């Protein structure tokens, strides 16, 4: 049974949100950025974050925001409620405040005790709505930074973790295909979710689809495809080696690994690709293993 809530994780910021709230906008990187989730009618939650050089208290973050928004002084008495009490997330210093208007917004200024990152989250609600339980769960679920060296990512049904040092290089959200590409020091990793699996695989097998999907991959590699299983799902494993003659002569040819599987419960295809040094290939196994394609 699927829950009405789903995790959302982007650049280390992790929250739980109602399932109907989906990513509407995203910019920036791990140091400084923004995302917004919308429901069918309106923006619902947005977050801005910035890596702080010095320790900043949540109250200072709230003051800075309110001053910038022109909500300081007499105006603030009318339109702002400070120090609102709400469930506090673990390992984070927080202050909650409400700004009244249409829509109203419950804000959480959060400063992570470990990574010193400062974030401001806002949940929007209309005056005729009571979203307090939703806000309590959402803000209570807030987590910052990687745990155990793994950085979780979760959006549009694509849920996985990469080593902490991998940075997001590129993302693409097309109808039917969500794709994130990461780069480590000497590695590249790609995670993708392709919707409408039943329709996509009506006229070709998963093996043929993966061969086609792997064509044109850069750098050019010689690839071998093997059918196997990933848990209860039919899968295709890809392994290969870089074709570069120059790297070959230096004995530094890198290897390519990949795994694609079809998840029936979510009617989607999942793809994990990895490219790097042979001695780091265990990173691929952990990356491919981390995908959660459907709720058990």
């Amino acid at each position: 049974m699927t829950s009405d809530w789903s995790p959302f994780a982007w650049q280390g910021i992790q929250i739980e949100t109602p399932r109907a709230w989906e990513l509407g906008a995203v910019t920036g990187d791990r140091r400084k950025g923004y995302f917004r989730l919308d429901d069918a009618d309106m923006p619902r939650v947005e977050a801005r974050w910035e890596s702080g050089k010095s320790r900043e208290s949540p109250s200072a973050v709230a003051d800075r925001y309110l001053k910038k928004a022109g909500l300081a002084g007499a105006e603030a008495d009318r339109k702002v409620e400070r120090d609102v009490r709400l469930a506090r997330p673990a390992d984070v210093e927080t202050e909650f405040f409400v700004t009244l208007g249409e829509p109203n917004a419950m804000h959480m200024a959060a400063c992570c005790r470990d990574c010193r990152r400062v974030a401001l989250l806002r949940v929007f609600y209309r005056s005729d709505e009571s979203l307090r339980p939703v806000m309590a769960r959402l803000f209570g679920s807030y987590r910052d930074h990687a745990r155990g060296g793994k950085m979780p990512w979760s959006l549009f049904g694509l849920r996985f973790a990469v080593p902490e040092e991998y940075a997001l290089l590129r993302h693409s959200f097309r109808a039917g295909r969500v794709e994130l590409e990461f780069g480590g020091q000497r590695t590249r990793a790609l995670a993708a979710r392709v919707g409408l699996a039943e329709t996509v695989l009506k006229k070709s097998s998963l093996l043929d689809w993966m061969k086609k999907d792997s064509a044109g991959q850069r750098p050019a590699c010689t690839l071998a495809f093997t059918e196997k299983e990933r848990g209860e799902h039919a899968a295709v494993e890809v392994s290969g080696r870089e074709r570069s003659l120059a790297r070959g002569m230096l004995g530094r040819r890198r290897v390519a690994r990949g795994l694609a599987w079809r998840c029936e419960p979510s009617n989607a295809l999942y793809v994990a690709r990895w490219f790097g040094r042979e001695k780091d290939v265990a990173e691929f196994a952990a990356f491919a293993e981390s995908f959660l394609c459907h709720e058990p």
Partner: protein
Amino acid sequence: MIAFWKKKGPQLTREDSLGAVVVPNRQLRVERNAEGTVTLYASFNAPAFVERIARWLGAPPRAGEAKVELDEVGSFVWDLCDSQRTVREMVACLADKYKLNRKEAEASLTAFLRSLAGRNLVAIVILKRAEPGDGSGPG
């Protein structure tokens, strides 16, 4: 240059578009194959200048039938175009049937409907929103 003189249509909001209903062209011939997928046939006349040349050459009038074959998902959406359901309801049906995210379903469906409307296979009717006090609201 012609586009320069083209009268701009009214600006539609996302809300307007999602509240619209889709009316299939009644002059189409619709066939369904054994797999349940739909093929649309639309008759057309050749452009006037082609007609004139054909007449001048003594050739019969050039008329024909354009064929549009929809795939499984397209056929499912076609069946939802019943002049009753709003685009918003169609998005929900599509997302539910194919386990798509709402945004994914909305983007795919609107692109598909735009392409159908561009070929005059459907008309998209924007329902007028009830203005407060204009008496056109329910009740």
